[in-house]
């Protein structure tokens, strides 16, 4: 008897989230081989140690929507860590994100929404200030997230590309860390979705860098690739030393760039 979760589920929500497609790879040896290949492509021959005490990766065991998978990168030892990589081994373009933390970052929790193309291991790789790499992994059941046709929001994403919003979650006080959610309208085409009119694949056009600063001091820089979900939403923590402006610069693979500034003031 095959467990029900292991049969493809024909979901009505517009996408077929196959829980076990033919290309699924839940063989541990194959996954280990894949990680070796991906790891060497991204990090060369650098050693990668066990990151359990330093970094965490919070993601669901099974994606509800493979084209919108919430992921949290957790830094447990912020003083030691300069940046963190998110690698989705089985995706085309496995390096989903590289975050470099600036002086005003609170690196403890960074959230992204990603596409996951098949059953795969994901890795969070922390880079320490002395140059060591430390990783943790998470196995996720998801399928088709990269080729899933885009939903009804596509028109809005195209029309308003580059439009940004910032939500501050919790009170703002000088010198106190606060969580924020930066939302960027952008279809983040990955080159694997079909255009309804031309029936050709829509050329890849995706956000490559997001630079966040506060009054001239760096908060973080995100380098991303085709694995971010459409309308990227980046949750991050930062510590504003005083009232001021959070500045965001976004650049996509077509060379388009957008700049925005958000007032961050303590609630009085």
């Amino acid at each position, binding site marked *: 008897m*095959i467990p*029900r979760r*292991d*049969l*493809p*589920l*024909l*979901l*009505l*929500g*517009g*996408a*077929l*989230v*196959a829980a*076990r*497609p*033919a290309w*699924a790879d839940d063989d541990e040896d194959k996954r280990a081989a894949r990680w070796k290949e991906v790891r060497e492509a991204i990090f060369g021959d650098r050693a990668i140690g066990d990151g359990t005490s330093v970094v965490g990766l919070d993601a*669901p065991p099974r994606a*509800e*929507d493979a084209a*919108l998978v*919430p992921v*949290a990168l957790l830094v447990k030892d912020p003083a030691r860590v300069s940046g963190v990589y998110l690698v989705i081994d089985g995706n085309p373009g496995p390096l989903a994100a590289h975050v470099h933390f600036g002086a005003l970052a609170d690196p403890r929790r960074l*959230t992204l*929404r990603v596409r996951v193309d098949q059953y795969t291991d994901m890795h969070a790789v922390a880079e320490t200030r002395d140059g060591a790499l430390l990783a943790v992994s998470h196995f996720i059941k998801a399928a*088709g997230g990269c*080729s*899933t*046709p*885009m*939903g*009804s*929001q596509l028109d*809005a994403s195209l029309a308003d590309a580059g439009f940004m*919003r910032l*939500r501050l*979650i*919790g009170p703002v006080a000088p010198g106190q860390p606060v*969580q924020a*959610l930066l*939302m960027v*309208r952008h279809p983040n085409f990955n080159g694997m*979705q*079909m*255009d*309804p*009119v031309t*029936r050709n694949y829509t050329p890849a056009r995706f956000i490559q860098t997001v630079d966040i600063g506060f009054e001239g001091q760096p908060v973080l820089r995100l380098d991303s690739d085709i694995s971010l979900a459409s*309308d990227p*939403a980046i*949750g991050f923590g930062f510590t504003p030393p005083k009232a001021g402006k959070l500045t965001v610069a976004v650049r996509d693979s077509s060379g388009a760039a957008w700049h925005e500034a958000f007032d961050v003031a303590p609630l009085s």
Partner: protein
Amino acid sequence: MSPLTRRAALFGACACCALATRRAVAASDFVEIAPGMVFRRGVDEQASVANADAIANTGFIVGAESVAVIDPGGSLADGQALRAAIAARTTRPVRFVVLSHVHPDHIFGAAAFTEGAPKIVGHARLPAALATRGEYYRRHLAELLGAEAAGPVVTPNLLVADTHTLDLGDRRLTLRAHRPAHTDTDLTLFDERTGTLIAADLLFIGRVPSFDGDLKGWLAELDALAAIRAARVVPGHGPVTTDWPAAAADLRRYLSLLLTETRAAIAAGVPIEQAATRVAASERGRWALFDDYNPRNVLTAYHQLEWE
């Protein structure tokens, strides 16, 4: 060979055994709900080899001269069962095959109705939706059922942008194209002779709704449909005939709760992944397949509403 392909191959090689243990569709499943109007209820399950994706309601309407199919079924195999049910009741030709929207469980049976080249009727946006999703749906359905049982993508050749009337002889069916709601390709029908509204997936009964259209749009279209005076309604999922508009009460409650609780979660800064497990949780137990669709519905709603 994966367990799946092994099982799919087994199905292909010995469809008779599979059908003998659990027939996807039996002739007795087709019920005449009003004169000349026959529907079959889909099972409240996910698509599987055993059910051949016969999980949505399908049916047909017989007029003096011809027959209209309203949703040909979830797979070629499902469509063939529908065709056999029609042949058992009438010799009049199928002139129209209506595809109520883009979802595969409603339309992959269309390939069973090539004989006589009926008009394939769909929303004006359906060809574009099928161009982006059709092959994707077909591939996944074929992985599950095998390519032959799944069938090819069939594209509509009679498009409805607003309203349109089909004439079956002495019987007129009025089609209405909706704004984005359950999907952005929703059609409903009204049979004037019997006063029957065929709501397709704008109405779910008993089985939790899914959507990839527009949550607020769906509630608005439900309001518009509620103004129609109908003797009965046929939903896309659930019992094939029931009272209108009373039958929409549960759906409206669920969608309204999805809207208000998702908005509240966004306003309170509840992260999307937490919202997915909390929003509309009070509806669990009221719907079949709740955990298969509700978290995903929340993700879709959250993504739509956070940009309000």
